[in-house]
C-alpha cells in the first residue's frame, strides 16, 4: 500500500493534527456571535408577540375591524396576504386562543407605524370570542399573537396567477388582504372576488374592497337575500356564476362558512377544476361533533375526567365529550398553544396516554407515525372516556 512514499504516508495523521491545531492558533480568540440566518428567521417568525389594540372601527353593521400594533414598538413580522394570526386573549384565569385571517395587507405591517388588522362579525349568540371582540375588547388592551400562520396564500410554484376568490361573510378577510396588496403593487396576481353576502346593507369591508378595484382586482357582490332594487348578482356562488367570472386556468381560493364548502365542492366538480387549482381555508372545528359518523352518540352529554400530565405534575380537570381537549384545558385555566383550531397545523400536538378520544375526521392533519402512537391535535380531539394526556409545560 503506497500513496506517495512510506514516510510521507505514515506521517499523515500527525500532519493533519498539526494542520488543525495551526488553524485554531490563527483564529480569533473572542466570541463571534453573528447569526444573520437566525435574524431573518426571526423577522419572519418571531414567535408569540405582545400586541396592543390601537384602533377599533366598524367594518359593517355587524362587524368590527381591530387594529393591532406591537406593544414594544418593534417591527411586525413578514407574512403573506391570506395568512392568519393566532390570537390569545387573557380572560380571567385563563387564556383563550383563536385564529383570525388578517384583513390588512402585508405592506401595511411594514410602514413605520406598522399594524395588522382582523375583522370579526358578532355571532348569533354561539360565538363567545366573536362577541367578546365586538362588545368588550377596548383600544389599549393587550393580547398576544402569532403570525403569519397557515397555507392559504398565493404560492407561485403552486397556484395560477389568475385567482378566483369565493368568499362568504367574514370569509372575505383573507381576500381583503390580498386585494390591498395587489392594489399597492406588491402582489402580482389578478384577483376576482365573488363575495356572497345576505343583504347589501351588511357587506363586510365594502368600502375598503371597492377602493382596491382596478385592472387587477375585481369585486363581484352576490346577494343571497331578497332585495328589491338590487341590480347585481343574486343567489349562491353557483357553478354557472363561477364560470361566468372565471378566467382560463384560474386557481380557486375558498373561505367562508362550512356549509358553503360542501356546496362549492359540488359546484367546482361540475366545472371540472383540477384538485391542484382549489384551495380551502381551514374553517375551525364543527359546532356539533356528534354529527360525525363514529362519534358515540351516548357520549353527547357526557363529562369525563381529564388527567393532564405536564412534566412530573398531574392535574385532573373535567372535560365534556362535546368539546375538544383544547377547550377543556382552556376552561380549566391550563395553557395550551393552538393556532389553526381545525386539526390541521399540529401546534397543539398532544399525547394520549390512556383513554379514548374521537378525532374529527375533517381536517385531520396528523402524521402517520403520530397516529400509531396515540398522538392527537388537542383542538380536534374529543374525550369519549376518562382520558390521560401529556402536553408541553408552558
Amino acid at each position, binding site marked *: 500500500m503506497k500513496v506517495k512514499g512510506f514516510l510521507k504516508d505514515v506521517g*499523515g495523521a500527525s500532519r493533519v493534527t498539526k494542520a488543525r491545531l495551526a488553524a485554531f492558533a490563527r483564529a480569533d480568540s473572542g466570541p463571534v456571535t453573528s447569526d444573520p440566518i437566525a435574524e431573518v*428567521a426571526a423577522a419572519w417568525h418571531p414567535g408569540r408577540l405582545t400586541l396592543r389594540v390601537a384602533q377599533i372601527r366598524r367594518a359593517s353593521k355587524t362587524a368590527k375591524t381591530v387594529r393591532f400594533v406591537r406593544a414594544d414598538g418593534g417591527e411586525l413580522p413578514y407574512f403573506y396576504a391570506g395568512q392568519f394570526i393566532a390570537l390569545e386573549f387573557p380572560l380571567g384565569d385563563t387564556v383563550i386562543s383563536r385564529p383570525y385571517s388578517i384583513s390588512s395587507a402585508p405592506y401595511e405591517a411594514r410602514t413605520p407605524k406598522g399594524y395588522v388588522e382582523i375583522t370579526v362579525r358578532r355571532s348569533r349568540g354561539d360565538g363567545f370570542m366573536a362577541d367578546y371582540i365586538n362588545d368588550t375588547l377596548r383600544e389599549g388592551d393587550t393580547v398576544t399573537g402569532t403570525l403569519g400562520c397557515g397555507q392559504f396564500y398565493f404560492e407561485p410554484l403552486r397556484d395560477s396567477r389568475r385567482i378566483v376568490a369565493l368568499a362568504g361573510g367574514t370569509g372575505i378577510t383573507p381576500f381583503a388582504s390580498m386585494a390591498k396588496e395587489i392594489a399597492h403593487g406588491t402582489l402580482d396576481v389578478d384577483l376576482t372576488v365573488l363575495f356572497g353576502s345576505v343583504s347589501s346593507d351588511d357587506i363586510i369591508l365594502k368600502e375598503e374592497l371597492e377602493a382596491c378595484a382596478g385592472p387587477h382586482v375585481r369585486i363581484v357582490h352576490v346577494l343571497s337575500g331578497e332585495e328589491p332594487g338590487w341590480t347585481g348578482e343574486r343567489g349562491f356562488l353557483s357553478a354557472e356564476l363561477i364560470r361566468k367570472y372565471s378566467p382560463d386556468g384560474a386557481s380557486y381560493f375558498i373561505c367562508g362558512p362550512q356549509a358553503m364548502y360542501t356546496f362549492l365542492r359540488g359546484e367546482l366538480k361540475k366545472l371540472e377544476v383540477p384538485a*391542484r387549482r382549489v384551495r380551502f381555508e381551514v374553517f375551525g372545528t364543527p359546532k356539533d361533533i356528534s354529527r360525525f359518523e363514529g362519534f358515540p352518540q351516548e357520549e353527547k352529554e357526557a363529562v369525563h375526567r381529564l388527567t393532564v400530565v405536564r*412534566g412530573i405534575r398531574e392535574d385532573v380537570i373535567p372535560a365534556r365529550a362535546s368539546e375538544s381537549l383544547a377547550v377543556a384545558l382552556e376552561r380549566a385555566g391550563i395553557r395550551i398553544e393552538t393556532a389553526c383550531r381545525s386539526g390541521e397545523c399540529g401546534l397543539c*400536538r398532544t399525547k394520549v396516554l390512556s383513554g379514548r378520544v374521537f378525532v374529527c375526521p375533517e381536517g385531520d392533519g396528523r402524521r402517520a*407515525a*403520530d397516529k400509531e402512537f396515540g398522538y392527537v391535535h388537542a383542538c380536534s380531539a374529543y374525550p369519549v372516556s376518562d382520558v390521560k394526556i401529556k402536553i408541553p409545560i408552558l
Partner: protein
Amino acid sequence: MDFYRDHYDVIVIGGALAGLSSALMLADKGLDVLVLERHNLPGGVSTSFVRGGIEIEAALHEMMSIGPRDARLKVGKFFDDMGVDIDWLKVPECYHASLPDLEVTLHPGFKTFAGEIESAVPGTYGKVMKLLELCHTVFDSVNELSVHPMSKVQMLLKHEAFVKTAGYSTKEVLDTFDLPQKALDLLAPYWIYVGSGFEELPFTIYAVLMADYVGYGSYIPRHFSHEMSLKMAERAEAMGVQIEYRQQVEKILVKDKKAYGVRTKRGDEIHSDYVICSAYPNKVYTSMIEPASEVPAAAFKMVNGRRLSLSAFSVILILDRPAEELNIRDYSIFRGDTMDTDVLYRDLAGLGPYRYLTCICHNYANPEATPPGTCSFSVTVLPQADAWKSVTADRYDEVKHRIARQVISDMSAYFGTDLLEHVLEAVIETPMTIARYTGAWNGCIYGYAHTMDDHIVARLQTAEEEKFIERLEFSGAHQISGDGMGPAVTNGRKAAKNVLDDIRKRKEAAAK
C-alpha cells in the same frame, strides 16, 4: 419546582437523533435522563409535516449504516439493540448520475456498481473494484478504531491502509488510481454533501461513506424520518427518560469549569450531574454558558478556527400524476453540468443559479409515500452556510422563489415535463427554515466541514484537549463523526459513552 425532579443524572439539550441516541444509551444503563426539546415534536430536521392531507418528508434522502435485518450495520444494529423497531424500506439504487454526455444508474454492491461503471466507461472495472476495496478496508479500520483505540505502531501493523491514506485528500488518493475522467465523474456525485470538494475532503471520509453507501445501500423508514424520530422518543420514554417539548434551553449553568444544570427560556432552573448539548459549540460558547467568564479563549479559537459546513435548500413538490407519467424514473438523480466537486463546492458559495441538483422521488422506495395517482419530488442543493448570510428579511421571499423556480425549470427541461403544471403542494425549505425550527447555528445542518485541516483523524487525536468545560458533552452534526443522520446517531452514542466513561472513572477514583 413542579414540573421537574430536583436533580437528574443527565440533561440532554435537543431531542433530535443525536440527543435521543444519547438518551437511549444512558437510560439503557439505568441513568435518569431529561431531554429538553425546543420544538413540539422530536427529530429536528428528521421530521415530516402534513400539507393538504399529505404527509411530506422534511429532510431525509436516505439512511446509511442500516443494513438488512439479518446483517445490520452500525446504526441499524443500535436501533435493534435499543428496541427501536423501525419499518425500514430499501432504497432501490445508489443514484442516477446525469451529466451532459452521460446517463448512468448505479446500484449498491461493489461488483454491481463497478460493473455499471464498466458498461459506461469500459476498461475501468479492475481499478474501480480496487478503489472500492481500499475504501472498505479503511471503513473497517475506522469502525474498529472508534471502539478499540490502539497505539500508532499497532495501528500501522493492523490498519495499514487507514494510516497511510489518513494524511491525504480524496483527490490525492483517487489520482493514484489513474481513472479516466468519466469514471471519476461517476464516483464523485454524492460526496459533495460532506462539505468539501475532493481537493479538501479527507480520503478517510470519502472511503467510509463510499464503502457504506455502495457496499450496503441505504434505507428509509416507511412513515418518513418522523417514524424514526418518534420511535426513538417513544422507546426512550418507555425506558424512563423524561422528554419535554417546547422547552428552549437558554443557559448551561457552570461553576468552576463544571456544568451542573440548565435554565430554560420559561425560567426553570434544572440541575444535573452532566449536560449533553446538541446546540453548536459556537452558540454554546458565545451565548449559552452562564457565567460567560467560564468560557476560555481557547474555546473561541476552536470554534472560530473551523469552517461551518453546508446548509440545505430544498423545493418539495407533491405532483398530481404518478412519477412515471412525468418521466421521473429514479429514486435519486444527481444532475450537473460537471461533477468536479471543487468547482461545484465553489458554486455553493453563492445564491445560484445552482448547477448541481440532487433530486429524490420517495415513491420509488415507498410506492405509498403519497396518495394513489400522485408522487413526491424534491430538488435539493446544499449551499455553504455563508452563502445565505447576505439575504435580508425583505429579500428572503424573492430569493427563495427565484432559486426554487430555477431548479424546478432545470429539472422540468431534463424530464421534458413542465412540473409546475402538476403541483398539488409546494414547499420551499431554506437555511432560515432550519434555523427557525431547530435553532441550528446559521441554519447549518452539517456541522463543520471535513477538510484537511479539520480532519476526522485529527478530531479524534485532540478530542480530550477540546473539553473546555467538565461534565458538558456535545452531540450532533458538529461532533467527531460529522454530518448526516447516521453519523448523528453515532455522535449521540459517543457523547453518552463519554458520560459513562467519566462516571466510571470517578467511581474508580472514589474507590481508591
